[in-house]
């Protein structure tokens, strides 16, 4: 799975969490939680969906790296590459 696939998967998951959001307007370098008004329950649902779709378990200590779409993609590329 390449970066674009990961990005598409993340956008698909975010679309389910914030169905009213226009994801084409999502800025890849700005905090996702702020842009989409995502709370901790939404964020947990996001992580559960990422785990299911990409088979990547993200430990709680790494949550701080998942702030923007770009950093999420970077993190997942890195983590999936280590598997």
């Amino acid at each position, binding site marked *: 799975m390449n970066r674009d696939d990961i990005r598409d998967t993340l956008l698909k998951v975010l679309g389910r969490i914030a*169905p009213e959001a226009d994801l084409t307007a999502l800025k890849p370098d700005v905090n996702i939680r702020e842009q989409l008004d995502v*709370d*901790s*329950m939404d964020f*947990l*649902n996001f992580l559960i969906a990422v*785990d299911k779709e990409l088979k990547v378990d993200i430990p709680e200590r790494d949550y701080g790296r998942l702030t923007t779409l770009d950093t999420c993609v970077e993190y997942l590329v890195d983590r999936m590459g280590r598997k």
Partner: protein
Amino acid sequence: MTEFVMPKLGADMNAGTLVCWRKQIGDAVKRGDIIAEVETEKGNIDVEVFAAGTIEKFLVAPGQKVPVGTVLALIHEEGKPEISSTSTEASYAAPSAIVAPPQPTAPRDARRIAPQHAAPRLAISPSARRLARELGVDPTTVEGTGHGGAISREDIERAATRGRTTLAKEAAQVTSPPVDRAARIRQTIAAAMSRSKRDIPHYYVSTTIDMQRSLAWLSEENARRPVADRILYGVLVLKAVALALRKVPELNATWEQGRVVLKPQIHVGVAIALREGGLVAPALHDTDQLALGELMKRLADLVNRTRAGSLRSSELSDPTITVTSLGEQGVESVYGVIYPPQVAMVGVGKIIERPWCVDGQVVPRPLVIVTLSADHRVSDGHRGGLFLSALDRLLQEPSEL
């Protein structure tokens, strides 16, 4: 025969529209089964039944808007004798003497007519009974304030006045133009909050709680759990609130007809923001009884269903206190407006790392400001302070939660 009535699903709900029946005539039902879907100001709600038996008859068709307390269906209970056909013929003007509406705190509906078989148990003077008949008040729905709870003429007069007010409100509601869900929720919040600020003498107390132990424990706990089973820190707070209420039970109560009613079960209402605006605060039933993992699962389910618009009637009518948390929005402290008929609300702010004195040393600690808004008719600041102290102590021993 038991009557299934339009429940009251919020302090200011006067009427609801039956969207559809979820069961058929002849279906067997048990307590807690979803029997109907009802449209309210808070969206469509799955309404549960509080009796076991067989559905005998539907009295209201989908699409009809009817006042709270209206009999929607008749349920034949196994092993219960039939009531006379004249009583069942009373259709939806008849009372719900056998099945209590899910909201035990609901203002009684003065338009219900008392059945003959319920009358002998009432403590009511003959003159008050006559007045009730004249004014069309069902005395079984009136709270007596006389000696030993006896119903007086004044009680009947008050009930009749309340009934007229309710009718006038309903008439206004029925004739008002249709509005979207967000606007209706806004109206519901406006009515409940106005009533709260008008009727409830709030007092406010707050405390700062060191969350280091709780967060450290949670971090270790979550490291052992797969992502789908991880626990949010808010769950610790909800559980601690529920346990602290056992020590100060007068905060787990409602104010009904001029007096406090302590609630034996602790159903913490959780304020959940909706994406289209507004909020709903449904109950997490028996919050004090659930292990943290189970509580987390129930909370996740509740949040998801609240946002999807598929709540159950008991979740809307049962909260005995509400917790609101605005920490994720960066709010340092929140002093909530009590949701009537509840008598208390807990506000949780943002966890912020700040300097804190521990054993004479200034150290950085994750601190949160927790507040209590409470009804001064029911409790005093002293008891409110004890509640916050208990909450603090509980959060210092997270493994015990």
